[in-house]
């Protein structure tokens, strides 16, 4: 049974990996230092073109040549690669966490592998990511998936048809799910979207809890829309799901989250244009048309929203402000003229040093339980977004 693919991949991963091992081995036979090369995944190797809509990799590569310092990493890479190739061969899949424990088991079971041992999952995740960047394939194409997180979706109009690996089809009418949301998987799925009735917009809310609150107050009953919770920094699943909605339904998409540097850079930018860490897969995992609905700096005054000062003595807060300054100088997304209004928000945050949370809308009129919904709709109607 063939697995669902994210994209049509022209590369034969096992063959590519075998060639790579062959090349390294033959270097060794000649007493030449073998090396591995991967795309450099960092901001200084990111390009942004507003017509493309997402961050793409530049020319820079990281080269890891065999020496006393790198021998550990190289040994770990080929060790992990062998496990991934075996999975591809037999059609098995694993999560990153499972791979971490599989490695630990193999390592602990055989004394000679002991030095490879991973101290925590971050170490093994790093090796998996490196292999992906090296072969320029998605982690999902190595049959390695992450846990599902975020993307809880509510709608009275949306119908999802899923084609399962065995060819069976499942029809999911979101309006029939009661209080249960539809959640996309953090792994490739074959989904076809259909609107029973014209959908006016899709709203992605930073806090999954706030999305749930809006829903329980009847948001999707009153509006022909898709309502989704991002649950913080959007996972690959959420990013791919937004991309799918954008491609198949052509509805305006709005993001509603906190007014602070973290949300702007880490959450909204990642949803709209991908991230530097995932340079090679931003094409399939970003939704370039999404707009920033709020909280906007202007809303703070207009709705007299409760807000407070960023504590600069707090190292985490200070780091965010510093990162925001960095982003204005070095992040091609914020440097692009098309995104000036977004970078203006960053500038405003750096200058005013305040933050205002998405939940502040709830305090605008304490006697009106659906005031937040009203503000959101008013903003959409008036085009009050960036």
């Amino acid at each position: 049974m063939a697995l669902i693919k994210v994209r049509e991949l022209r590369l034969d991963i096992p063959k590519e990996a075998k060639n790579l091992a062959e090349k390294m081995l033959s270097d060794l036979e000649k007493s030449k230092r073998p090396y591995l090369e991967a795309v450099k995944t960092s901001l200084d190797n990111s390009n942004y073109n507003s017509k493309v809509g997402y961050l793409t990799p530049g020319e820079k590569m990281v080269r890891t040549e065999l020496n006393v310092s790198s021998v550990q990493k190289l040994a770990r890479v080929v060790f992990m690669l062998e496990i991934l190739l075996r999975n591809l061969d037999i059609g098995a899949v694993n999560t990153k966490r499972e791979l971490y424990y599989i490695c630990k088991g193999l390592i602990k079971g055989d004394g000679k592998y002991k030095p490879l041992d991973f101290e925590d999952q971050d170490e093994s995740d790093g090796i998996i990511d490196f292999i992906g960047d090296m072969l320029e394939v998605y982690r999902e194409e190595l049959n390695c998936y992450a846990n599902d997180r975020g993307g809880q979706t509510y709608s009275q109009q949306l119908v999802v048809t899923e084609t399962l690996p065995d060819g069976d089809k499942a029809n999911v009418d979101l309006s029939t799910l009661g209080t249960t949301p539809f959640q996309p998987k953090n792994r490739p799925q074959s989904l076809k979207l259909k609107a029973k009735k014209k959908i006016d917009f899709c709203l992605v809310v930073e806090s999954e809890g706030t999305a749930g609150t809006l829903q329980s107050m009847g948001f999707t009953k009153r509006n022909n829309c898709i309502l989704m919770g991002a649950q913080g920094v959007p996972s690959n699943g959420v990013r791919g799901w937004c991309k799918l909605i954008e491609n198949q339904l052509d509805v305006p998409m709005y993001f509603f989250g906190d007014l602070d540097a973290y949300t702007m850079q880490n959450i909204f930018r990642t949803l709209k244009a991908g991230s530097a860490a995932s340079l090679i897969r931003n094409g399939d995992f970003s939704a370039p048309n999404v707009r920033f609905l709020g909280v906007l700096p202007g809303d703070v005054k207009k709705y007299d929203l409760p807000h407070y000062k960023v504590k600069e003595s707090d190292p985490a807060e200070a780091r965010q402000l510093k990162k925001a300054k960095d982003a204005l100088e070095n992040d091609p997304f914020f440097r692009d003229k098309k995104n000036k209004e977004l970078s203006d928000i960053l500038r405003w945050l750096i200058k005013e040093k305040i933050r205002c949370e998405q939940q502040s809308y709830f305090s605008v009129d304490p006697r009106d339980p659906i005031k937040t919904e009203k503000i959101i709709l008013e903003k959409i109607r008036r085009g009050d977004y960036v």
Partner: protein
Amino acid sequence: MSKITKSSTAEYFAKNLQQVGFSSPLKAVLTTLKEAVDNSLDACEGAEILPELEIEVKKVGIGSTKNTDLIKIVVEDNGPGIDADDLAKVFGEYLASSKFGRGQCSRGQQGIGISAATTWAQMTNAKGVQVISKTKSMKKAVSAQVDVDIKTNTGIVRNKTTLDWKKTNGTRVEFLMDGRIQMNGDGGLLTYIDGTVLVNPHLTVTHKMGDNEKTTVERVSNDSPEIPEATLPHPHTFKLGEFITHSHLYGKISLSKFLKTGFSRISDQSIKDFVKNGLPKNLVEKTITTMNEEDFKKAFQAVQATELMAPSTKSVLTVGEDSLSKSINRLGEVDFFSVMTRKPTICDFKPVVVEVALARFINRGSEGEPVQLLRFANRVPLQFDKSGCAITWAIESVNWKSYGLSQPKDSLPQGPYVFAVSIVSPFIKFKNASKETIDASDELVEEIRRALMQAGQKLSRHIKHEMKEADLERKLAHIEQFGPILVEKLVSISGANASRKKKAEEGLRKILGRDSDDAVNQLEEAQTKLAAQKQKEAKKMSSADEADKGSQ
């Protein structure tokens, strides 16, 4: 209206012994020991005698107060001895001091400590101090009990007798008082002994603490420290009231003469400058006994408004880097150390010298614990309330990570080290009369910080060599561990045969062999450098030893 009565100084201190170091049974024992040892060392230095002390602290029974023991504290020295007539004053009268405010770097200053110890003994065990003393001119030693008459602040001598004594000169004091004994830790007796030993290289001490073995620590220097001459006070360190009081010491002389002879750094030119800065001309030659407060105020203001040379730093006594280096070895087996004596400088208009010794010991402390901190003011260990002390502040403000030590945020660094920081100054500003913490002025903290950073830099050379050594060893191990795995997995993925595997293994050995040769060479270089530095330090210690022998 209630009746207003006047109480004596002794009455005040008797009621407020906590202010002078008797706030707990534990502190009472340590403070008493400290005061007795300070007096002995000051007396020896004053008479240019190399001090030999015998100390005993012992639990002899149950104390009269709840939860205390009855403690015996004995300190015997080979100092000049005390005349029989002075016993009452020395041990039984507050503020009777030969050292008060005279601007010398002596340990004692005010004449409170030992009288307070006598009071404590008297209050908890109904007996003051038992003294035996003999000066060279006395045929027999005198033995007596001295009590404090609290109502009149005078000493009372009881049971005075004479006796034949083994010593030609010296003093032995014995206290019996309520207290408790703690050996180690910040307030420990042994910590006190360590500290005293460290900053007094010329001291030989035999001590028996509680149930511990009797131990003798020999001196490592035969130079009795030369106490620098006291210097005249600098006018900028005075307040108006002090200025007027100071004038009373000089009788009927003119203001200009008083200023020139009563203070340092005032010349004829300065007098002219004072006039420029508002000193009325008619006051310059006026006799000070005829001046009123208004006159003094004008004169004082003009003096304060005029720039003067900074106070002299000659009056400051230091232990010195050589002596400190040798003295460190008396605390245990030193792995390596670094010492730093700063040049005398002026902080808050007072001459100050900061000395720092940082040492790592083989059998003391451990990696996860904070370093042991020894603080000194005029060569007296400070053992309580370290968190408020200028020295602690300065240490915590230094980034020790850059010198290779681990350091939790805003805390002392960690590791098997002893950090000894000594502040010497004729005028140390303490936070309290019990002399436990040095007041932290910005200037002083900065000066201590500089000394620490210099010592830290010296120390880091050691630590960095060591870290490099460990790093290289780790890399060498890497090659042996990871090389074979790399080849095995490459062979497995590419499906190569055994002969290719063998060839690749040989190739790998060649490549990494070159690397490991390099690493071995670097390692040897690092080891040589470390050895050279240790040798340099050993030489420093031994050359100081030889210099000592030469002077014998």
